[in-house]
């Protein structure tokens, strides 16, 4: 394709894509191509959502999940960025931790659930822990890579103008220079956080994931899909809001 699409064209096409997706889904269920017991028709979702809202389950699930999400994201992001920056800046620390990092990195957040239950119980802290761990690694690697790719000439610049010590380098060079990479990591973490919310709650900590689990055990597939879409919506909102933060922090890139 030669000519670039305008913004309106792209938005229009993406709306069209969604309409085609839901339309063919609806047609497939109504025509019996897909068994309606297994797949809910899109038009049935509305009623399911209204019922959930009337019962107060929807609002409560969102509030519960948001609290896990916010806390897990906060701890995971802050610790991940800090650890990544430090490892990127201090070769001794980097070397010392590299073995431990390689050992722990491949362990998925879900695998920590038994320990989360054991250490924290089936409560907010347990869910927060699982979310924080998966967010941690994303931010750790993003920050680490961002620091490692800082132009070494800038360190010499800092030394030449009296900011050659650790704090000077950190504050004047490393933080601003690695901000684009750190922001990208934070943004990926925002999405990863929502994925982990479900994992963390499937085991009974109240929230969206737990509600989905209950619904699926009753074969209420429409309710499951309502919460799937709810999560997509929440992700879209958080990502949209983060866009403003990113735009402000990286305004020099505009």
């Amino acid at each position: 394709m030669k000519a670039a699409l305008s913004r309106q064209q792209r938005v229009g096409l993406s709306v069209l894509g969604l309409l085609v997706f839901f339309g063919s889904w609806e047609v497939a269920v109504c025509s019996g191509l897909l068994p309606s017991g297994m797949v809910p028709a899109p038009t049935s979702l509305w009623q399911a959502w209204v019922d959930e809202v009337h019962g107060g389950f929807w609002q409560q699930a969102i509030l519960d999940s948001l609290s896990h999400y916010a806390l897990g994201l906060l701890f995971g992001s802050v610790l991940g960025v800090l650890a990544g920056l430090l490892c990127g800046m201090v070769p001794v620390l980097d070397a010392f931790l590299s073995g431990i990092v390689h050992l722990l990195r491949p362990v998925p957040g879900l695998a920590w659930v038994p320990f989360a239950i054991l250490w924290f119980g089936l409560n907010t802290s347990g869910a927060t822990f699982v979310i924080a761990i998966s967010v941690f690694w994303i931010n750790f690697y993003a920050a680490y890579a961002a620091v490692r790719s800082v132009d070494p000439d800038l360190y010499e610049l800092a030394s030449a103008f009296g900011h050659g010590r650790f704090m000077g380098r950190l504050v004047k060079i490393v933080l601003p220079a690695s901000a684009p990479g750190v922001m990208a990591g934070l943004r990926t973490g925002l999405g990863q956080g929502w994925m982990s919310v479900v994992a963390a709650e499937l085991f009974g900590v109240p929230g969206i994931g737990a509600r989905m689990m209950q619904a699926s055990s009753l074969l209420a597939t429409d309710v499951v899909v309502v919460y799937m879409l709810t999560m997509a919506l929440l992700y879209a909102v958080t990502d949209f809001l983060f866009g403003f933060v990113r735009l402000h922090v990286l305004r020099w890139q505009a």
Partner: protein
Amino acid sequence: MRDAAPLARLEDVGLSHDGGRTFIFRHVSLTLHKGEFVALLGPSGVGKSTVLRVLMGLSKPSEGVVRGPVHGEGDADAWQAGASGTKRRAQALVFQDPRLMPWRSVLRNVAFGLEGLGLSKHEKRERALAALRLVGLEEAADRWPKQLSGGQRQRVGVARALTVDPDLLLMDEPFGALDPITRESLQDELLRIWQQTHKTVLFVTHDIEEALKLATRILVLSGSPAEIVGELSIGAEHKAPDSLEFRAYAARLRGMIAGKPALSDAP
């Protein structure tokens, strides 16, 4: 000018990156006097910038002694703070690639060296603006570096060095990457600024005409390992590029650079 007080000195300095088996330069001694404009001239890759970095305290010499504007001996931190309460730095460096920080406005790039000197926000702004005025870029203070041309960026680099009011201004081929027209106008500006501020300048270049045009004294660095192979003082009256004297000087400098073939000194 030669009677003026010595400001910085290298005494028999050498630098090796492999523990003394091979040297980039060796037995380099030079003295910079207050108010001088000294050019360090030599072919590309001979180690001129490295000599400058040793003098600046950014590299530690393998042998010899470095004496800077403050009594320190090659200790960058001791040099830089200046005497307490003076709110200046003993020396400042202009890089070849101006190395502006893209996340800072032009003004805040210039103010970089002022941070940590105990100045108020207002003082920092005023001094950075004054330096920008000196290089003719005051109106660009609030722009981002990427909005500037190559020549303007290098002016910002010069302003950043001038604003800390250094005793010694070190310049590492600052105009090497610019087009000839921009380079010439920046050379003229540098001369004007030097006459206005009476800074001591050490200017690294591989361009014989540039050295002759700017400097009051030229040191020639050549060979492998590099040494100072010649020195030339130039009176102000011989600065016209078309004059016979100018061409005679250029020929002598060429002879100095070539007279020490690169291989003759290898151990």
